[in-house]
């Protein structure tokens, strides 16, 4: 009898400590924003015929700033509305979990265009518009998966979709499609459609949980 309450107390303490470490900001608006921006950017990139590797990298690099800034703004608004600090301990944990793969993606995106200069057009195309975007997808999946340890609602699974999807496309090799169409299509699917789908899912599930 006596050990029962002690065990229950310990269990309750463990549960509460885990709950305190979880990041609780609503992610649906962030995901929806990222999805809309990703899809619009893919369509715009295809229409504008951004089909050189360096232009492609620069274009998507610039596009990535929009959802990133939007996410910071939305999360900050939520924190202000709830009277909570923006840079809270769960926020710090999530940010630090995201950082290594994001920094790796950033550095490779800055370094690769420099090395593309001396390469022939086909190699540069494959590197800049096929392998680099797939690398972004895999690294982004790693970042989501790492952050998922401090987030509820299937974030780790979402990360796995990026990792396996990116690796799967690597395994398929070089597709017999116009390079720019394929590259913008892949970016639009992963960074647009998938985010949009996850955002819609979160929109309906997060409300119930909160």
């Amino acid at each position, binding site marked *: 009898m006596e050990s029962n309450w002690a065990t229950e107390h310990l269990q309750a303490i463990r549960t509460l400590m885990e709950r305190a470490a979880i990041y609780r900001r609503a992610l649906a608006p962030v995901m929806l924003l990222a999805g809309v921006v990703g899809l619009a950017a893919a369509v715009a990139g295809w229409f504008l015929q951004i089909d050189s590797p360096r232009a492609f990298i620069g274009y998507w690099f610039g596009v990535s700033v929009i959802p990133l800034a939007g996410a910071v703004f939305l999360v900050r608004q939520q924190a202000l509305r709830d009277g*909570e*600090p923006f840079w809270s301990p769960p926020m710090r944990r999530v940010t630090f979990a995201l950082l290594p793969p994001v920094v790796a993606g950033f550095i490779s995106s800055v370094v690769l265009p420099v090395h593309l200069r001396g390469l022939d057009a086909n190699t540069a195309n494959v590197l800049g518009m096929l392998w680099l975007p797939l690398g972004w997808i895999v690294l982004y999946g790693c970042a989501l998966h790492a952050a998922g340890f401090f987030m509820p609602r299937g974030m780790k699974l979402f990360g796995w979709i990026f990792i396996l999807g990116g690796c799967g496309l690597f395994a398929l090799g070089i597709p017999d499609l116009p390079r720019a169409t394929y590259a913008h299509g892949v970016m639009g699917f992963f960074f647009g459609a998938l985010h949009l789908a996850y955002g819609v899912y979160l929109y309906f599930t997060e409300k119930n949980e909160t």
Partner: protein
Amino acid sequence: MNPEPFLQLDRVIHEKGRLAIMSLLAATVELSFTEMRDTLTMTDGNLTAHIRTLHESGYVSVTKAFQGGRPLTTYTLTAQGKKAFATYINLLEQIVQQTKQSK
């Protein structure tokens, strides 16, 4: 069974609401009032009363600041609070172990 661990349990922490607050604060560097209230689904009055008891016992420190022109109160476990919480957990584990051995 040795009743000693049970008698040594800190009565300030042993109360359910205060134990919940201590558990949350032990898992993180600091928490705001609203974060705690929402996580524990406590009323403002109840949470305030428990925090006051913990603060008076020297277990929780209170920081008042302003963020975006609005007051922001955050709470942290003090060194004394961390020690008391660790002792409390150890005693609970001793009680569980003792009961397992006596079966």
